């Protein structure tokens, strides 16, 4: 809420005033009310390997995270630039590979990467859009800059929380909304549907049929899948609902088979088609990839986008932006040491207790070393791992992430936050609803905001000045 040095960010002035006027009991009462609403609506997520409570609520903090319109304008520009570069990079990697010839990105990082999909070589995707939905994780460390923590170009989740958080905040704090001009987010489902329809294959009819493919009710993000299908007015399908015939994809309906043109898939590449990828997948659709190759179905996001959000590629993003767009990147990267490079590895090994070390292919905050808070034994264990397989890791400095006031057991206290805006790319335009999902590390001093690791969420307000 404050800029480094202690001054209040201007966007928070009204909130600070309101917090002063509002008794803590009133805040606590509304917090409980919010929790009740979430549970009744069934906004839950599942935690893998946690048999006790297979359905949990993501803790919701009622204090909004606020950003000025001016700050947002800059961020928005930076996000569009970054996603444009991600799409151009993917198109290049699966076609001409100019960037490899120019030696900006090393070959082996692509070809020896398990998320590189040779099936996509030369495959045309409508309008050259690979990443239709991107979730870019942003943090702030000072008054000016936005820093990208991570690109999510596969099946980013969390947008349902962005939308539901707003609904619940508007229900609980009408007075607070009356005192701010908060840019609305409710256009998101419409924009998503428009983007998905705009990339329908040529063989689709004038009114392309879009469906959302979910792994099913046991998936951790199932609530989101059903929520989005509902808001978009499209069928929520599982693999077993789809069938491929003469390279076209159909869903089984009570009136017989119906052709599907665009699949918003929330199933990972590996599970999409047991004939092409993991043969043991029961979540996928046999033959889907051949329908894809025949150009009769659009998958959003495209197959093989993992190569663009891989943590090893991440450190090259500033160069990637410059290479394709000839522009300076608006969003910065966290300085990153690539452990695959001997010089970097040596530095990382010498400074383990100060660094954050991440698995290149990991996600969800798992398999991470946070040097400053780790025990000696953990650090030593990580040192061995690093020496054994240096190319599997990157390291970054611990950042002084910005904080936002948050309800805690001992009253309001600052907690670290990040922001995941959702960037939509269709045939003609790239759009972002103002805001995104703010995640907050609820433990004091913690930097880990992942919901699987005890993080919570907040509503994100972009003030329309």
């Amino acid at each position, binding site marked *: 809420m404050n800029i480094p040095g202690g001054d209040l960010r201007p966007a928070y002035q009204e909130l600070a005033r309101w917090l002063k006027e509002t008794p803590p009991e009133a805040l606590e009462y509304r917090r409980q009310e919010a929790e009740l609403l979430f*549970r*009744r*609506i*069934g906004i839950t997520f599942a935690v893998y390997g946690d048999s006790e409570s297979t359905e949990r609520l993501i803790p919701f903090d009622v204090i909004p995270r606020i950003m000025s319109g001016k700050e947002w304008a800059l961020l928005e520009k930076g996000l569009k630039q970054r996603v444009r570069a991600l799409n151009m990079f993917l198109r290049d990697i699966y076609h001409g590979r100019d960037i490899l010839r120019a030696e900006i990105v090393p070959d082996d990082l692509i070809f020896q990467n398990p998320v590189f999909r040779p099936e996509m070589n030369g495959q045309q995707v409508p309008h050259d859009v690979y990443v239709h939905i991107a979730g870019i994780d942003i943090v702030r460390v000072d008054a000016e800059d936005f820093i990208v923590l991570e690109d999510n170009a596969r099946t980013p989740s969390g947008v349902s929380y962005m939308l539901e958080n707003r609904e619940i905040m508007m229900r609980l704090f009408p007075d607070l909304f009356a005192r701010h001009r908060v840019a609305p987010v409710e256009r998101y489902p419409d924009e998503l549907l428009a983007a998905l329809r705009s990339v329908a294959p040529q063989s689709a009819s004038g009114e392309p049929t879009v469906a959302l493919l979910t792994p*099913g*009710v046991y998936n951790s993000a*199932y609530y989101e899948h*059903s*929520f989005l*299908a*509902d808001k978009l007015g499209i*069928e*929520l*399908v*599982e693999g*077993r*609902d789809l069938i491929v015939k003469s390279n076209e994809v159909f*869903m*089984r*309906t*009570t*009136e017989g088979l119906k052709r599907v043109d665009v699949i918003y898939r929330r199933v990972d590449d590996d599970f999409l088609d047991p004939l092409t990828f993991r043969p043991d997948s029961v979540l996928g659709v046999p033959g889907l990839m051949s329908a894809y190759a025949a150009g009769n179905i659009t998958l959003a996001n495209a197959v093989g986008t993992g190569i663009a959000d891989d943590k090893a590629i991440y450190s090259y993003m500033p160069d990637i932006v410059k290479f394709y767009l000839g522009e300076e990147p608006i969003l910065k990267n966290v300085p990153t040491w690539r452990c695959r490079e001997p010089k970097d590895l040596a530095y990382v090994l010498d400074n383990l207790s100060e660094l954050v070390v991440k698995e290149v292919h990991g996600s969800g905050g798992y398999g991470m070393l946070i040097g400053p808070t780790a025990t000696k034994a953990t650090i030593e264990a990580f040192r061995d791992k690093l020496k054994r397989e240096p190319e599997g890791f990157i390291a970054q400095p611990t950042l002084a992430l910005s904080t936002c006031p948050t309800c805690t057991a001992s009253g309001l206290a600052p907690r670290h936050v990040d922001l995941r805006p959702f960037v939509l790319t269709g045939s003609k335009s790239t759009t972002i609803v103002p805001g995104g999902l703010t995640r907050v590390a609820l433990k004091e001093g913690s930097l880990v905001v992942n919901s699987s690791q005890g993080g919570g969420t907040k509503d994100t307000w972009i003030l329309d000045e």
Partner: protein
Amino acid sequence: MLSRTAENLYWLARYVERAEYLARTIDATLRVTALPAAYIGKTNEWDSALLTAGVAASFYQAYEEANEHNVVEYLSFSPNNPSSIRNCIEAARLNSRSVRTALTSEMWDTINSAWIELQAVWSKGTSTREDLAKFLRFVQETSLRFDGSAYRTMLRNDAYWFSRMGVHLERADNTARILDVKYHVLLPEEEHVGGPLDFYQWSSILRSVSALTAYHWVYRETLKPWLIADLLILNDTLPRSLASCYGNLVRNLDQIGVAYGRQGPAQRHARGIRNRLEHSNMNDIFQHGVHEFIQEFITDNSRLGEIITKQYLI
């Protein structure tokens, strides 16, 4: 709509209906077993309850004796009984989650709240009669809320019709099962010897399909077994009668037929059963044998379930 969605809606409604029926059965059995033995004779009513629920065989694998404690436990809470009330609500919630997009928020809220209450309040079962009464009321109210919100909030399209089909198919099955277990007390007029014992059996039957008051309004008579059979089988003004269930099934199937622009074996089969009910009278049925009639009906009814599944749900 997706076949799987239709299937989930259909089963969701069946599970809720079944849970309510089980609650009614337990309720009615509690009443009749509370009477002094002189009024109900030597029959084991808890055994009948198991039979009408269709779970007697699996019950006796787990328990020795069909007494109140064991049967209530098995029908209400047992995780090992796939049709226990608890498992019905669990299954209903799972089905609801899979078809959230096809449910109205009121329907979802009903099922989700029931599921939350089941865990928060009833996870350890019930220890007193009073608790049990509360639990049974909770189950019946859940079903009423579910039905009510479906009726009041759903679009009248195939989603609604498939859901209603689940209700009526399950309901027909339940009513038929009571008749199947109790047919021996439902004798035709000329064979009726009438003892006080039977009176409580009859009122218990009516109570389990919530038709005790209805009986008096329809017949303006004291309880007569042949009239009870008439009410439950042929009287289409009683929502739980076989005739009423089949009137509804035919209507819902016809609406689907019109919406989809074609009919199939499900429509024909349902109409066949409905016609048979329409053109029967109790004299014929008694002559043919109530037991045989009901057995045939149960087979035909589950056959309709299979046909619907094949025609629409897979």
